[in-house]
């Protein structure tokens, strides 16, 4: 090959391309290589053995990444080399990938009750941030009102996407008070803060605290009265039992697809989604790849392609709608498999099971001395408040019982005192819940 290209060695190629003073003249100082697959396996598994997993420990952590059961078929499809190792090919080579994306969009569209869904973005935080920027572009307004009970890390992501104060495109983020008795949005506060400059009202259902926003419709109505968009973040696993956001006035829906058949992967399983009305006004501002069905030269054959590709930064560069790029598309295919396996009955039953198990857990924990449950309307996650001990101490004790206690929110939400969020899914048995309650009893003594 060297002879073919007229070079004597590869160093000569680099000499032709890269100035001498920029070239490294020594070997890199890196760890000794482990070229043998077996040696590498021993090495990496040796390191990974220092982890403790949620299979070994009983886990009650959620807060943006949840432990749901992943059907074996989901794993099988996610490991298919065709899906795992493809990338940016076109429909003619990758029809199956495009059809899977369209099916993902279609099934998620059924769950949220919306006609337009895009390819996943990175996570719920990014999807909410993108949705807010979308709303701002639609109306040209530069203010958004956000429910107090959204995840703080999600809010931090949103604020980064809303730009620093000095920037001309800065979107002001105002926070809406919530009612302490049920965690819902304080409508009076909303009516006080909303103006004709408000681009959107953003809230979540269920919220970060697990609470259900029972007056979603009224929130959306207030938003619409002021010409603002109603943006709702949802956990799609709840949508067999909770109303789809479109039914209570959402114009844009977002959320995370990780609960739909995707492992936690230490946070690597996240994937955001953005759904909206099938209205040109929304579609041209949507930042994600949107796969549309179309027909082909052959009668009866479906094809797929990118809708309004000129929206994207691949065409518009800095004029694109935010940006498009590598996100979390593999998880769209896995979520499609999951939704197809579940069907309408499965998605309802899993929602019901989560409701029953999480409420059973809350009831059982409320019997533990020194423990109280501030909200009783919730889905999957609920706040647990502790008296006389810190969450940090309690979680340290629980760890000794091989239990990962809930996410500590004592500094994020000081209004609830020493508190944490417990996540109870379809995977928790009555026995698991009993073990948690007994361990807490021992801890609280």
């Amino acid at each position, binding site marked *: 090959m060297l002879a073919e290209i007229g070079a004597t060695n590869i160093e000569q190629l680099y000499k032709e391309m890269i100035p001498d003073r920029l070239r490294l003249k020594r070997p*890199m100082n890196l760890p000794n290589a482990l070229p043998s697959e077996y040696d590498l396996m021993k090495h990496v598994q040796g390191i990974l053995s220092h982890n403790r997993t949620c299979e070994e420990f009983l886990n009650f952590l959620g807060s943006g990444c949840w432990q749901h059961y992943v059907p074996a078929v989901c794993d099988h499809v996610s490991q298919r080399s065709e899906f795992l190792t493809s990338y940016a090919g076109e429909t003619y080579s990758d029809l199956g990938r495009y059809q899977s994306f369209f099916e993902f969009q279609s099934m998620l569209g059924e769950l949220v009750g919306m006609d337009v869904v895009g390819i996943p973005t990175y996570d719920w935080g990014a999807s909410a941030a993108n949705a807010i920027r979308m709303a701002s572009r639609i109306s040209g307004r530069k203010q958004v009102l956000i429910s107090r009970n959204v995840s703080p890390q999600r809010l931090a992501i949103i604020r980064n996407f809303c730009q620093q104060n000095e920037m001309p495109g800065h979107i002001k983020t105002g926070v809406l008070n919530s009612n302490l008795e049920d965690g819902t949005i304080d409508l009076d506060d909303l009516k006080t803060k909303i103006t004709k400059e408000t681009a959107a009202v953003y809230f979540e259902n269920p919220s970060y605290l697990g609470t259900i926003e029972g007056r979603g419709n009224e929130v959306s109505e207030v938003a619409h009265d002021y010409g603002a968009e109603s943006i709702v973040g949802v956990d799609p696993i709840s949508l067999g039992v909770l109303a789809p956001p479109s039914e209570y006035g959402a114009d844009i829906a977002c959320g995370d697809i990780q609960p739909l058949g995707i492992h936690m992967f*230490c946070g690597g399983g996240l994937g955001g989604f953005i759904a909206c009305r099938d209205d040109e006004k929304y579609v041209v501002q949507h930042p994600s790849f949107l796969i549309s069905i179309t027909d082909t*030269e052959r009668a009866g054959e479906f094809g797929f392609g990118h809708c309004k590709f000129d929206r994207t930064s691949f065409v518009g560069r800095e004029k694109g709608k935010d940006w498009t790029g590598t996100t979390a598309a*593999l998880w769209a295919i896995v979520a499609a498999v999951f939704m197809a396996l579940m069907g309408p009955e499965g998605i309802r039953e899993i929602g019901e099971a989560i409701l029953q198990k999480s409420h059973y857990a809350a009831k059982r924990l409320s019997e533990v001395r020194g423990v109280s449950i501030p909200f009783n309307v919730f889905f999957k996650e609920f706040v647990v408040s502790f008296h006389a001990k810190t969450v940090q101490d309690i979680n340290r004790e629980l760890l000794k019982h091989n239990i990962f206690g809930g996410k500590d929110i004592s500094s994020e939400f000081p209004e609830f005192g020493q508190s944490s969020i417990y996540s109870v899914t379809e995977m928790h048995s009555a026995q698991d819940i009993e073990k948690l309650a007994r361990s807490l009893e021992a801890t609280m003594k």
Partner: protein
Amino acid sequence: MSSWSELKRYHAAEWHEPIIMEMGRVGERGIIIPEVEEEIKRSIGPPNHFVPATMRRRVPPKLPQLAQPQVLRHYLRLSQQTLGMEETIDIGLGTCTMKYSPKVNEEFVRQTAHLHPLQDEATLQGVLEIMYKFGKLFLKEISGMDEFSYQPGGGSEAVFTNALIIGEYHEMNGELAERNEIITTAFSHPCDSAAPATAGFKVVTLYPDPNTGYPTLDALKAAVSKHTAGLMVTNPEDTGIFNPEIAEWTRIVHEVGGLCAYDQANANAILGVTSARDADFDMCFFNLHKTFSSPHGGEGPGCGAIGVKEELASFLPVPVVTFDGTKYHLDYNRPSSVGKIREFYGNVPVVLRAYAWAMSMGSDGLREVAEISALNNSYLDKKLLTIQGVTKPYGVKRRVDQVRYSLERLKSDTGIGTHDVNRRIVDFGLQSYFTSHAPLLVPEPFTPEPCETYSKADIDYWSSVIRKVCEEAYENPEIVRTAPHNSTISQIHETHLDDPARWAMTWRAYVRKRTESGKIKVNPP
């Protein structure tokens, strides 16, 4: 070299799978959910009353109803109608570095499936060690940067993060209101324009000199000012041309008070050859799903690992992995941090694969990766430039990792352009190739990148297909114009994709539009 007989007889799988929304039968199920025990049901009663009446789902979602084998078969068939890099010679997707990821890495990834990112640090020592060492032992030496974050979920989000760091730096100096311009180049990836724009910056794009392929120093000098916040450029650029004046660029930008961020998405053929530190950049990023072998997942999950100099480390997103000599920690207490970019701390499986791959390579191995990639690129270049109709714009002979070629001559000679050729190469079992991002400075472009994964025989085959299709363009253009012929589908009708009356991103929208406008031929199956 290019006779038909040397090219494989190929036909893509053609299953004619219906859309899953039309499949199945009422009452079928693919999975049964875990039991809710009687004691739970007895204790708390039916589930419905836990949801306020206003928030109950009244109409079930119209998901399909299928048994497990039918779901599995459907998605296996769809997978067969997809060309992964493991199934084909994926040289065509330039800027993407379609390299092989050793299968053993998937074994490691499975061991992270049941880890929750909020677990107590003591129970995550394994993944924290991997993240720490990959930065401190590998990326630090490769890039010359000091501290790293894996939070960005892809290259564009990494550029966004670097833009936020540039913004935070100038804000701390009280200069952000004045310093609001990012300078980039036309052949840098579009994210070097789009991500800083999303962060609020005004973007100044420098266009290439027609001879050298990169902008002149004079153009840069004219662009910099007291408004310059920073420089965000790819090098080598998407043309495969390495800007040899890059150290001058960083000097000029530094002189006016800007910061410099090196987009290392195209770093595969310069690993161990030249680094961000050598060119005096302040920060950089690598796509671990490209250069460091994590599979691309059909557009992610990926990881844009960012690295910064010590002086900027305080701005990194939280948390940062630290080591006290005994234990690894997640450090959230960083007051100057840009905060959060992504929830938790990044795509751990992607970092894990990158670490395992880099460990299997070592110093000599990584340098060899670069050298073989550069050699492959020159070899493919030699092959392609003997094909009638293919030209290489800009007067730079040697290209680093890829080349943006032009089929302009083919188009003017035969009427066959790059999109026609791209449809036709699929008939020979190749993945479609990448043409170009905007702006389309190279007419009728295509951008192959023959990274170290590909053998001489692979490159010979790939170039033979291009030769064959170009020959067809001259001899029998109709076969190219009407391609594909051996693909899963025939040519799609693209006009519908931009027509609000016909586009449909969901089956429900498709059905509604088909029903609403009976006359519109959206072609029911």
